């Protein structure tokens, strides 16, 4: 029995990666919850829960921007 042709091996590997990526994106869509994340100089970041005061304010401010963008003619 002859070994698989090199291009087939490559093709299968690429397809495998694509399948994995698609599965990851599907899981992400299902499991992802709303969040507010702030990043600071130096790479530090902080999450703000939806039910916190700062989180609530951030979501309200973001909601206004989403509303403006909705009204933008495409």
């Amino acid at each position, binding site marked *: 029995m002859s070994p698989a042709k090199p291009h087939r091996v490559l093709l299968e590997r690429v397809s495998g990666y694509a399948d994995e990526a698609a599965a990851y*994106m599907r899981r*992400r869509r299902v499991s*992802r919850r709303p969040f507010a994340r702030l*990043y600071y100089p130096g790479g530090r970041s902080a999450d*703000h829960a939806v039910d916190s005061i*700062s989180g609530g304010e*951030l979501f309200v401010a973001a909601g206004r921007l989403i509303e403006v963008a909705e009204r933008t003619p495409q």
Partner: protein
Amino acid sequence: MVDTAKAGRSVPGGAAERALAFLAEMSPDLRGAAILDASGRVLAASDEPRRWEEDVAALLAVADRAGEEPVEQVHIATEQGEVFAIRNAGLAAVAVTDRFALASVLFFDLRSILRDLAGGGDGLAGGDGGGAA
């Protein structure tokens, strides 16, 4: 090195508008965006610049109050869409996208655009390296 204090004032609105159009072309998820100078004045916006100016100022004020230092980037994901904001080189950019936009790519594009505008460019060096014709 970019003079961050001067950068925002020296960017012409035309360059910011071209940069915004380029961003829209590169980002299929984009619903709207705005670029602002250091004082918070809109240099370019998808629509209703005054409304963008007010709402971006409100968002950045809330974000700054939430921590002990001024924020550099903001990413808020809601059920209705996602909001990205970034400050760089004395300018600020805000983008609203559909849900599940790739944050790292969008932040990279926004940062590249701001850096290019602040350096006197036309903002088209963002994303994939300025492949615009």
